[in-house]
């Protein structure tokens, strides 16, 4: 199969030539494939019914006014309505603030913690599991817990701050703080995974490089800047992509902690879509999902290409 596709994609040759190629390649192609082609069928059917069909359907329903009871085709009105939504502009900005804040913090903190936990320090195994532990806890559980901790009057955080004479803000009730507070919790919860990816990346760097550099008189900083950091590029790419995609479509933590409030000050695209869906505007919320799909793709694909560009040079 792979050879065949390669030949087809290569292009440039005439139709007859291509047929020639294909005919000559076919027997080998089949021999190379481990399984008969109909082995792909069950997975193919699943993929088609559970992914392709709903995706196609969502593009259609995005163009309708859909009450579940009946469907009316209204063209692009849903998209117009979505972009006229007063809170939408704010939620777009919030989504990007949230995504960039969380993913950049995870890169910086994840790398720092990765470097620390890769070195020979006391209780390394224990510290590694402590850092990773929040990743294992359910997001809803984390959200509910931090909502209680961040209560402006009875919460542990502000009570602790009060003992040292600081009046803590209304973490989740002050519109200026709400989004940042949720982002901080997201970072706390997600940094363990970033650390783990960096630990694996650091372990994959051969010791010889730094030994050779040390012979050449490089200090620790040179070592980090010229060897570790460039060679960690694949790990960084993974962390950035994972956390950026996660941040752009983040919903569960925000919904548990603030429900987008107070007012609309911590609303992101995903929570806006959810609210439209809750209100029974099924066509409108589907249109929102299509927009989210396009936005995530528009941000992630170029980024993916850019981050992976340098990989071959290593």
């Amino acid at each position, binding site marked *: 199969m792979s050879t065949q596709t390669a030949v087809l994609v290569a292009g440039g040759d005439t139709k007859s030539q291509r047929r020639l190629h294909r005919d000559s390649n076919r027997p080998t192609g089949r021999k190379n494939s481990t399984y008969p082609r109909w082995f792909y*069928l069950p997975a193919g*059917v699943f993929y088609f019914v559970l992914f392709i069909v709903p995706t196609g359907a969502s593009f259609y329903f995005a163009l309708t006014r859909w009450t579940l009871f009946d469907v009316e085709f209204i063209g692009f009105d849903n998209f117009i309505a979505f972009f006229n939504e007063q809170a939408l502009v704010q939620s777009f900005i919030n989504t990007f603030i949230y995504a960039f804040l969380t993913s950049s913090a995870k890169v910086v903190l994840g790398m720092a913690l990765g470097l620390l936990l890769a070195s020979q320090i006391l209780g390394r195994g224990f510290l590694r599991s402590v850092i990773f532990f929040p990743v294992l806890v359910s997001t809803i559980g984390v959200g509910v817990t931090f909502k209680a901790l961040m209560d402006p009057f009875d919460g542990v955080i502000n009570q602790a701050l009060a003992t040292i004479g600081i009046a803590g803000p209304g973490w989740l009730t002050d519109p200026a703080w709400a989004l940042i507070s949720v982002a901080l919790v997201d970072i706390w919860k997600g940094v363990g995974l970033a650390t783990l990816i960096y630990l694996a990346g650091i372990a994959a760097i051969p010791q010889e490089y730094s030994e050779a550099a040390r012979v050449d008189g490089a200090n620790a900083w040179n070592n980090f800047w010229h060897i570790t950091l460039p060679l960690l590029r694949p790990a960084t790419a993974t962390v950035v992509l994972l956390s950026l995609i996660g941040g752009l479509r983040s919903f569960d933590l925000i919904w548990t902690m603030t429900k987008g*409030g107070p*007012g609309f000050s911590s609303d992101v695209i995903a929570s806006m879509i959810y609210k439209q869906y809750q209100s029974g*505007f099924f066509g*409108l919320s589907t249109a929102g999902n299509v927009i989210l799909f396009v936005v995530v793709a528009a941000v992630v694909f170029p980024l993916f290409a850019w981050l992976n560009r340098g990989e071959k040079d290593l």
Partner: protein
Amino acid sequence: MSATRTRRMAMLSVAGVSALALALTGCTAGGSENEDGSVTLSVLVDNGESTVTLFDALGEAFTEANPDITIDVETRPPGAEGDNLIKTKLSTGEMNDVFFYNTGSLLQALNPDDTLVNLSEEEWVGTLDENFAESAGTDDAIYGAPGGSSMGGVMLYNKDIYAELGLEIPKTWDEFMANNQKILDSGVAAPVIQTYADTWSSQLFVLGDFYNVSAEDPDWAAEYTANNRKYAEEPALHGFEDLQAVHDAGYLNEDFASATYDDGVRMISEGAGAHYPMLTFAAPAISANYPDAVDTVGAFPIPGRDASKNGLTVWMPSALYIPKSTEGATLDAAKKFLAFVASTDGCDVMNEQAAPTGPYVVEGCELPEEVPALVSDMQPYFDSGDTGLALEFVSPVKGPALEQLTVTAGSGIDTAESAAAKYDEDVKKQAQQLGLEGW
């Protein structure tokens, strides 16, 4: 590729697809008629504690009178999540035999003419209060049997604080604000309680003000449905302005942004706050959790601009409905159950279970002798006829973002004018979704 292989492939794919289809559709709701001729009715209610105990009791009393019918109470989440569940169940034909749901605009969103069984031929329909009959049906039909008593959208107030400071019940907004200032100056309590952690509780200044709106402009609701009236204009704007005014004057409880409805009930009962705009459905919670406060917490209508037009905004109770998917012996049993709930026997069970929230909407149903003060305080308004239905019972137009917008206007994030204008935009979507004329 040989012929047998092709056939086998085709068979396999057919089997695969049909297995998937089966898995995806799931099993349809089974009939609930048992072999011995008895019927089990599945009733879907919201998971509020008082609702569940009420329907358990109603079911028990009903089965006592009709031994061949048993009631099986199933619960659903409240709020928007529940709305969605109801819509999904109705549109897929998976709805329980009977379900309990709001009257008014939320009922209209269910497309009742297509999805529910018309009950206008039932005997008990004649005993219903006219307002309720309008809220639980459409122009052509009646679909619901009342599962509770009516409610008022009121200003709850702490009578002890009023007595201590020698205050009088305000008839106008200015008198209300003057009272608030006296309470603030005295330092005994927060003048006005707001609980924005439960965003829905922020809507009362706007929704409970509707008597005042229609007192000033009797055609407001009909014109609003036709897209000729706006919240950003007088008189409806007052609700938003009031919300902003109590915040800007510093009358709110310190923790208004993080307090919950339960906190609000506690504060008004214990005297930590003097006023709490709320529905009288707080009555069961007060009598169950703060029995000492039953006579302390009173109610008065949310004051408007004109003392001569002082009156109460009233909410109709939720109702029991039968979906069209209920048929045969189950349908007969369901109709019997609704007739029981909408009878004086039904009200007796309700009176035993919890403190009523206001007068009943079924002829012959009486409130018990002892009711919480906040319920008896409403009676004079009902007696003199100074009551009006809340907007959601006279117009299907209600925007989903009202509770967020009232929070922004009531906590200084946005101004009253701007929040009201945003709400006018918000309702547009609902009106279009309902296919109303003029939007």
